[in-house]
């Protein structure tokens, strides 16, 4: 019972931490390379604990993210829903990929997410972003193995699901 609640805390903690990391400012040059943390963390839990992650959760995490740093309410909810839906659908295959292939899959998902964001922003009337804007998914995919191993290790140490 205790392990279970610890696991729940870890799950919620990582999500909240991801939302907070989105707010932390970086020096101007690094700014466009900031990965989309909530997407990475949600992807991890989608692959590792399918029963915890649902479209509803992705939607509410997205709403939370919009609340604290969004531009339009529902934008990140839309993006995270689409991301989690695709990840859930290909979960069985993604799980058994070797790490480098998994990173490539994550890259594809994040690029898709950026594209979705671009469409939403263009519909809202924003202008075309600079080319560096497309760098963030690559940084996210490069960080994926480290984040995956770190969270796996953390779960193994705490002996939680």
């Amino acid at each position, binding site marked *: 019972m205790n392990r279970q609640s610890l696991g729940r805390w870890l799950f919620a903690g990582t999500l909240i931490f991801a939302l907070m990391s989105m707010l932390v400012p970086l020096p101007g040059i690094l700014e466009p390379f900031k990965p989309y943390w909530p997407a990475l963390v949600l992807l991890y839990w989608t692959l590792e604990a399918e029963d915890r992650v649902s479209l509803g959760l992705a939607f509410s995490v997205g709403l939370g993210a919009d609340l604290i740093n969004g531009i339009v309410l*529902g934008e990140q909810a839309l993006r995270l*829903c689409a991301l989690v839906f695709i990840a859930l659908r290909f979960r069985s295959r993604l799980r058994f990929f070797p790490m480098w292939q998994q990173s490539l899959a994550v890259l594809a998902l994040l690029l898709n997410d950026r594209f979705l964001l671009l469409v939403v922003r263009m519909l809202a009337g924003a*202008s075309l972003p600079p080319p560096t804007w497309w760098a963030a998914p690559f940084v996210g995919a490069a960080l994926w193995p480290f984040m995956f191993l770190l969270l796996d290790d953390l779960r193994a140490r705490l002996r939680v699901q």
Partner: protein
Amino acid sequence: MARARDESSPLFAGNAAGTLRLIVYLALAMALMVLDQRNGWLWRLRYTAAAVVEPIYRLAGLPAVGIRTVSVAFADRQRLTEQNQRLREDLLLANAKLNRMAAVAEQNLRLKQLLDTQHSLKLNVQLARVVGVDLGAYRYRMTLNLGARDGVKPGQPVIDAHGVIGQVKEVLPNTSIVMLITDPEHAIPVVIERSGLRTVAYGSREGDRLSLPDLPLAADVRVGDKLLTSGLGGRFPPGFPVGEIRDVAPADTGMFLVAHASVAADIDRSADVLLLHDQAEPDGPPPPVVPMGPPSNLAPGAAPVSASSPAKRPATASHGGVQP
């Protein structure tokens, strides 16, 4: 059991219910976005959830504060001494200037009173700290640690020692969000100091630049011209530095000149900014005129008053210099 598992989570194909749920959620998100775009719900929601949102902002701002503290703690002694020395010199210089400005401001005030204009040079300002929070990559915003409870209202101009930074866009109870003048959606009415030409400076997407896209072809604009706020539109008081022209070229259409200007304020470096409050409209009868008496050096209480007057009005003095 194994069969049920297979049906609920097939290896290659999804089920229709999952797709349906996705469509419902996507539609919900779209509806939210459209409604928010129309009604500005997000900020009302943020205001309502301020008890949760504000601590998150402060918490996320902590790393930035920590880095600053660490850099101070680990700065070596010599650099600190040098910095101290330089700051002392700056302070002396500033004080000297301030005293001169105070005298000029006093004189200006007297002359204006003589002219019976009701404008006062006194600036009503409030010092605010910048909270280091990143509000998304697209927008040019800044977070301040003062909010509705400190009397901040949307539309208030924000300045620093060198010029205009922007205006307050949204207000939460203890935090407010400033729209910078470099925001592509921002426009500020300006006047070119040298020629007196009035125009509008828009923000641009290339970092800390302003663009002036609709100057007449015959306009007298040169590189190095200073831009001041013109006071038209009533949002920014007149006479504050905005920027300096960096390049002028005819537009692609050949019908206008397009100029780009750098920003006078230290937008990405200042940690403290000033919020300007509306200058209170003088109401009621004017204050009674001080009766003319014998020369002031004969009056017993005159000397301390005149000695303390520069110190009493630092805000007036430091901004008196930029008033036209």
